[in-house]
């Protein structure tokens, strides 16, 4: 194995040695932030502020400040929830599933992908809480022992399942993320100059010393976590899809939802990872680490999942027709031709057409194009959830209560706010934590030199 040299294009460019990797990654944290970073951070913060204002006003005044009505009880709130949960999926997928498949190329992006997961799940988790009429009672969703005489939650409710799914997902992926970071934290600790930094990372790295006996078990645990996270990530969006699949409303009451939602989640997730990675590699000069290879690989995943999503759309229409159920058929005709047709066709345009560009290598390797297309996918996937939720509700069984839906500025503000929160957290993360997994990158360097060059 010692003379095994990869014939493929190397994972990392600019033939670096181990020290260079440490140097490059830690530099991002050491050097002063660029004006680009400040700009992004400023934008993110102001978006977050807008979100805070909207949400506080809504909680103080009532859900009435949203555009909902007696027929359409969910719209932006749950759309955003599903959207963010979906985004979250790519992270775990990259770090866990690709790890199990021994996909070496994941090493330079998995750290930030996992971080993205956690931040996305945090954003997602907010919506079920603020969408409640009485959010201050959100803790009633947990089955805690109480003295109110037997009083429990309803384990038959998909919303209760959500609580467990999202909760578990957040905890496990956070653990996975942190656990994977411990060796790097130690690295940062050992090269830190300032006392504060030494102490801070000293605490976080839990006295890691690179002992191989520890490494040995560490690897096993990491594999186990990956093994857990993989089915977890599938289960989470399955459960989210149950919110709709187990209901009685035509357009929601659909057995194909679980795979359809999971694929959609990965689809949107990878698009979001691309967006972030492309920004990161530009602003932080990580071209050597996040190479065109990485980008190309991810676009390939997008082609696949995009394909599954397309298939799902087709299946829905087929099943509606095949079921012979008039209400079902109406809902789908109404999606494509009804008052919300515009939203439906945006969805189709973004989710069905966009991925097709990635069949061409030239486009896959054109960073700018990929960036633009990835954003289109994100838009498309947001609209997918909007279409599923709103068009199914606004015209269901009894025509007497059919109605339309238009968002208020409060809802739009909240959506923008969630993006603000997401990017704020992410920008803080890349400044304070090793955003590339040094250990794992080093392991794929296959460096055989004597490592004694300028930096040491």
């Amino acid at each position, binding site marked *: *194995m*010692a003379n095994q040299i990869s014939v493929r294009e190397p994972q990392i460019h600019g033939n670096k*040695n*181990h*020290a260079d990797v*440490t140097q490059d990654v830690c530099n991002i944290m050491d050097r002063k932030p660029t004006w680009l970073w400040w700009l992004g951070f400023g934008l993110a913060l102001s978006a977050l502020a807008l979100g805070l204002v909207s949400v506080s006003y809504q909680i103080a005044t009532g859900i009435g400040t949203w555009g909902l009505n007696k027929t359409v009880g969910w719209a932006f709130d749950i759309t955003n929830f599903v959207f963010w949960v979906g985004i979250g999926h790519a992270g775990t997928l990259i770090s866990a599933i690709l790890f199990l498949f021994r996909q070496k190329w994941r090493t330079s992006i998995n750290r930030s992908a996992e971080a993205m997961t956690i931040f996305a799940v945090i954003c997602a988790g907010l919506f079920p809480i603020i969408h409640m009429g009485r959010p201050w009672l959100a803790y009633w969703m947990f*089955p805690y022992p109480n003295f109110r005489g*037997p009083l*429990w939650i*309803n*384990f*038959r409710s998909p919303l*209760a*399942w959500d609580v*467990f*799914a999202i*909760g*578990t997902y957040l*905890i*496990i992926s956070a*653990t*996975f993320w942190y656990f994977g970071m411990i*060796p790097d934290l*130690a*690295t940062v*600790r*050992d090269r830190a100059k300032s006392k504060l930094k030494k*102490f801070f990372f000293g605490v976080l790295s*839990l*006295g*890691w*010393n*690179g*002992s*191989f006996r520890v*490494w*040995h*078990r*560490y*690897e*096993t*645990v990491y594999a*186990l*976590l990956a093994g*857990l*996270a993989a089915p977890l990530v599938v*289960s989470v969006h*399955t*459960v989210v899809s149950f919110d709709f699949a187990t209901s009685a409303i035509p357009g929601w009451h659909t057995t194909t939802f679980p795979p359809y939602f999971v694929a959609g989640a990965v689809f949107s997730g990878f698009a979001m990872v691309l967006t972030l990675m492309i920004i990161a590699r530009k602003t932080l000069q990580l071209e050597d680490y996040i190479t065109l290879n990485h980008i190309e690989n991810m676009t390939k995943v997008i082609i696949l999942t995009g394909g599954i999503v397309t298939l799902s759309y087709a299946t829905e229409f087929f099943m509606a027709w095949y079921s012979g159920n008039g209400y079902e058929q109406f809902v789908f005709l109404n999606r494509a031709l009804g008052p919300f047709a515009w939203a439906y066709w945006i969805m189709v345009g973004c989710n069905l057409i966009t991925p097709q560009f990635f069949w061409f290598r030239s486009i896959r390797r054109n960073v700018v194009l990929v960036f633009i297309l990835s954003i289109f996918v994100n838009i498309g996937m947001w609209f997918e959830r909007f279409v599923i939720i709103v068009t199914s509700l606004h015209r269901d069984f009894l025509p007497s209560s059919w109605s339309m839906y238009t968002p208020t500025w409060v809802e739009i503000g909240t959506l923008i706010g969630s993006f603000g929160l997401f990017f704020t957290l992410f920008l803080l993360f890349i400044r304070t934590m090793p955003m590339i997994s*040094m*250990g*794992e990158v*080093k*392991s794929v360097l296959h*460096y*055989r*030199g*004597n*490592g004694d060059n300028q930096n*040491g």
Partner: protein
Amino acid sequence: MDRQMVAEFRNEFDLTDAVQAVRDAGFEIVDAYTPFAVHGLDKAMGLKKSRINQISFLFALIGITVGVLGQYWVSAINWPINIGGRPWNSLPAFMPVAFEVMVLFCGLGTVFSFFAWRKVKYGKQGLQPNLRATNDRFYVVVKQGQERKSTSVVKDIVTENNGEMVDQ
């Protein structure tokens, strides 16, 4: 306790070969310090497979049991209440939560038992031959035998694998 010898290497391949050779020469490897999990070093050092996966399986079992029985007890025994005409024991509906609980127990259980084994020392500077062990240097710690010449043997193996002894 016996004296130990520490050797430093520039890359993982040299290290692995050296470790292999030293062990073949009948020396006992105390430990190795590397910036990342070196592939194949475990075999070289002759480490046994970790049994932690059995622990995590145990936790998974506990998780699923708590999940299923808990929900059954709540919905069918402690507080049976007619919800949309569904039966007291709606087992299919309990599956998602049961699964999540299992994953949660298993995941946290595994990690914490790892920490327990590791006896984490919060904030302590790790005990390692050199700070570069977490950066770009690879160290091996060998238990020095009784014979005088043993030192030289190890030294030879190290040097021919382009490593060098570190004296402490």
